[in-house]
C-alpha cells in the first residue's frame, strides 16, 4: 500500500491538470468561435438538435413543474390568507430559478449526453484524427457549433419553460382551485420586474455554456473503447448538472 499523502497529492495533481485542460479547452473554443469562417450550417443543425428536439421534454417538464408549484403554492399561501399572491410566487420561482435550472438539466440529460457520446465515439473510431488529417479543425467543426447552439437554444428553451410553467400554475391555481384569473396575472405583472427576467436570461446563457462546454470536453477527451465513452457520457451529465446547480447559487447571490 502506498503512502496516503502521496495518493492525496496525486489526486490533487490530476484534478488540477483536468481543470487546466478544461480551461484551455474553453479558451480554445472561444478563440475558434470568433475566428472565421463561421460554420453556419453546422450551427443551424446543432440548434435543431439541442433546441428543437429538446422542446417536447421542456414542454412536459415545464407544465408539470408549473402545476406542482401552483398546487404547493396555493396550499402554503392559504395558511396566511395570501392566495392572491399565487401568480407572483409561481412566476418568480420559475423566472428566477426553476426555469433556467430545470431547462439546463433537461438539456444536459438529453442533448449534452448525446453530444458527449457522439464526440467520444468519433474520438475512439479515429474520426477526429481523420478531420485533423484533412486539415479540418475539430474544435471548429465539432465543438464550436454545439457551444454556439447551446448559447442560443438554452435561453429560448428557458423562456418556453417559464411561459408553459406559468400556464401550468394557472391551470391548477385558477381552473382547479378557484383563484381569480385577474388576480393571478395582475399580481404577477406587479411583482415580476425586468431585473428578474434579465437575471433568468443571464443564468440560462451561462448554463448553456456550462452544459455544452463540459459535455463536448468530456467527449473530446474520452477514454478507450465503449467503456470509456460510457464513462465520459455519465461524467458529462453529472459534472454539467452539478456545475449548473453550484453556479446557480453564485448567480443568485450576485444577481438578486
Amino acid at each position, binding site marked *: 500500500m502506498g503512502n496516503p499523502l502521496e495518493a492525496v497529492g496525486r489526486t490533487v495533481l490530476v484534478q488540477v491538470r483536468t481543470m487546466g485542460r478544461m480551461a484551455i479547452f474553453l479558451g480554445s473554443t472561444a478563440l475558434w468561435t470568433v475566428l472565421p469562417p463561421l460554420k453556419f450550417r453546422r450551427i443551424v443543425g446543432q440548434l435543431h438538435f439541442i433546441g428543437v428536439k429538446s422542446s417536447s421534454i421542456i414542454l412536459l417538464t415545464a407544465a408539470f413543474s408549473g402545476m406542482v408549484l401552483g398546487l404547493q403554492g396555493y396550499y402554503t399561501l392559504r395558511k396566511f390568507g395570501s392566495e392572491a399572491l399565487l401568480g407572483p410566487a409561481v412566476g418568480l420561482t420559475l423566472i428566477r430559478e426553476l426555469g433556467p435550472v430545470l431547462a439546463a438539466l433537461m438539456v444536459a440529460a438529453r442533448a449534452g449526453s448525446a453530444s458527449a457520446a457522439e464526440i467520444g465515439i468519433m474520438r475512439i473510431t479515429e474520426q477526429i484524427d481523420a478531420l485533423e488529417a484533412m486539415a*479540418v479543425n475539430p474544435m471548429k467543426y465539432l465543438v464550436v457549433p454545439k457551444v454556439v447552439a447551446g448559447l442560443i437554444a438554452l435561453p429560448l428553451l428557458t423562456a418556453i419553460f417559464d411561459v408553459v410553467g406559468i400556464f401550468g400554475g394557472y391551470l391548477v391555481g385558477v381552473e382547479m382551485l378557484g383563484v381569480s384569473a385577474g388576480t393571478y396575472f395582475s399580481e404577477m405583472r406587479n411583482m415580476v420586474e425586468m431585473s428578474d427576467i434579465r437575471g433568468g436570461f443571464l443564468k440560462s446563457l451561462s448554463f448553456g455554456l456550462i452544459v455544452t462546454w463540459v459535455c463536448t470536453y468530456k467527449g473530446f477527451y474520452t477514454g478507450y473503447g465503449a467503456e470509456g465513452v460510457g464513462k465520459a457520457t455519465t461524467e458529462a451529465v453529472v459534472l454539467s448538472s452539478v456545475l449548473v446547480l453550484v453556479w446557480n447559487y453564485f448567480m443568485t447571490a450576485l444577481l438578486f
Partner: protein
Amino acid sequence: MIQLIDLCKSFEQQQVLKGVNLTIPRGQVTAIIGRSGGGKSVLLKHLIGLMRPDSGQVLVDGTDLGRLRGKALDQVREKFGVLFQGCALFDSLTVFDNVAFPLREKTRLSESEIATRTMQRLEAVGLADMPHKYPAELSGGMKKRAALARALIHDPQIILFDEPTTGLDPILLNSVHRLILDAHKRFGFTAVVVSHDIPEIFDIAQTVAMLHDGIIVEHDKPEAIMTSANPIVRQFITGASDQHGQE
C-alpha cells in the same frame, strides 16, 4: 520526399519509437512492416503531425513537421490523404458525403463539380451504385474502398495506408491491394503502407522497411527483404514463433 531523423516517442514509461531513421522516396510505394503493437501506426501518425515526437524530426519536402502549428501545418496536411485502420468514415454521413467532405471543407468548388468528382472516385473504387448508403450499411471491404475514395478525392501527393487490409478475407485483401496499385499507377502519389500481410505486401511495394523494437532494422527492395539474412526479418517473414513463447 519524407525523411524521419532519429524519431523517438514514449507513452508514459513505454518507449515506442527509439530513434527511427527512414527515407521515403517520392512517387513510390513504401511498405512498413513489423509485429503488431510495434509502433507502426504511431510512426504513421507522426508523418502527418497527428502525434509530435519527443525528439527527432519528420521532414516533408524539407519542412520539419514538429515545428509547424495552425495554418502552416494544415498546408502540409493538405498534401496528404490517409486511409485509417478502421476507415474512420463519418458514420453520420452517407458514402457520397464522406467522399465529398474534403472538397466541401477545403475547396471552393461548386456543388456540381464536387458531385462529378466524387462520383468519378466512387466509380474508380467500384462504389458508384451506393453513394447514398451509410457506413454502417457497408461491408468491411466496401468501407475500405469508400475510405480510399475519400483519401484520393483531393489528388494528394502522399497517401498513408494504416493496415488497409486488416480484417479482410484473402480475396478482399488482394482486391484492396490491387486497388492501391491501380490508384498509384493512375495518380502517381507517394504511398506509405503499414502492413503485416506477408508476402502479399511485397507485390505492391517498391521499398520495404521493417520496424522492430522501435527502430528500422532493415530497409530495402522487397526481393532483398525476402532474402534477408537478418534473423529478426527472417523470423517475421517466415512467421516462426520466438523462443520466449510470443506469438
